[in-house]
């Protein structure tokens, strides 16, 4: 079984200037696993990337890994204030 929470944490911490502020919450919603990634406000841009390209890449890796476990996943990214 893939460790998707670990995957999100590893990528977000590597991207962030404040890795200690990275937090991932996992919940189930209508048969899908929802991951909420929280990062420091200053790191939001880096984690999302220009035109959302880094966030899109992370979502692609998540779905690729989830596909083999027959799971549906989604990822929300926000900073401490809840902004995303």
């Amino acid at each position: 079984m893939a460790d998707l929470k670990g995957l999100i944490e590893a990528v977000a911490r590597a991207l962030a200037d404040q890795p200690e502020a990275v937090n991932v919450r996992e919940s189930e919603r209508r048969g899908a696993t929802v991951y909420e990634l929280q990062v420091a406000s200053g790191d939001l841009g880096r984690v999302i990337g220009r035109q959302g390209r880094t966030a899109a890449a992370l979502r692609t890796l998540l779905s690729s890994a989830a596909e083999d476990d027959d799971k549906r996943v989604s990822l929300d990214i926000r900073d401490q204030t809840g902004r995303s």
Partner: protein
Amino acid sequence: MATADITEFVQKVVDAMDLDLEASAEEMPDGVRINLNGEDGNVLIRRQGEALAALQHIVAAIYRHEAAEGRRLVVDCMGYRKGKDDELKQMALFLAGKAKDSGLAQEIGPLNPYERRIVHLAVAEVDKVTSESIGDAFEKTVIISVK
């Protein structure tokens, strides 16, 4: 920035994805190539290498200082990118020859920055032709024409 760190990070990602793949680093004249080999290579390669391209983007975003120093960072899986790169280089050389013979500008693309670099380097090997990227998006077209 140590190559070992990059290899370790890529290994951590594929392990978290529960893929049977092993990362190894290969030093290149202009940077480093991280090769992934193993049973689950298809997961990264399917759908035109969608997941591999995603992994490449993330690694480049994390180790962006490497690129700033002119070091190329390439993540490959079962030689997929190497094969694609060689194919693109052959196509660029073919179009350069065609431009030279016919005098007509040839167009290739849209291509991402990594792919455009391969085309520009290939065209530079052919005399009397030049290449230029046009467009203002991430993906641009390359025009190959006689000088």
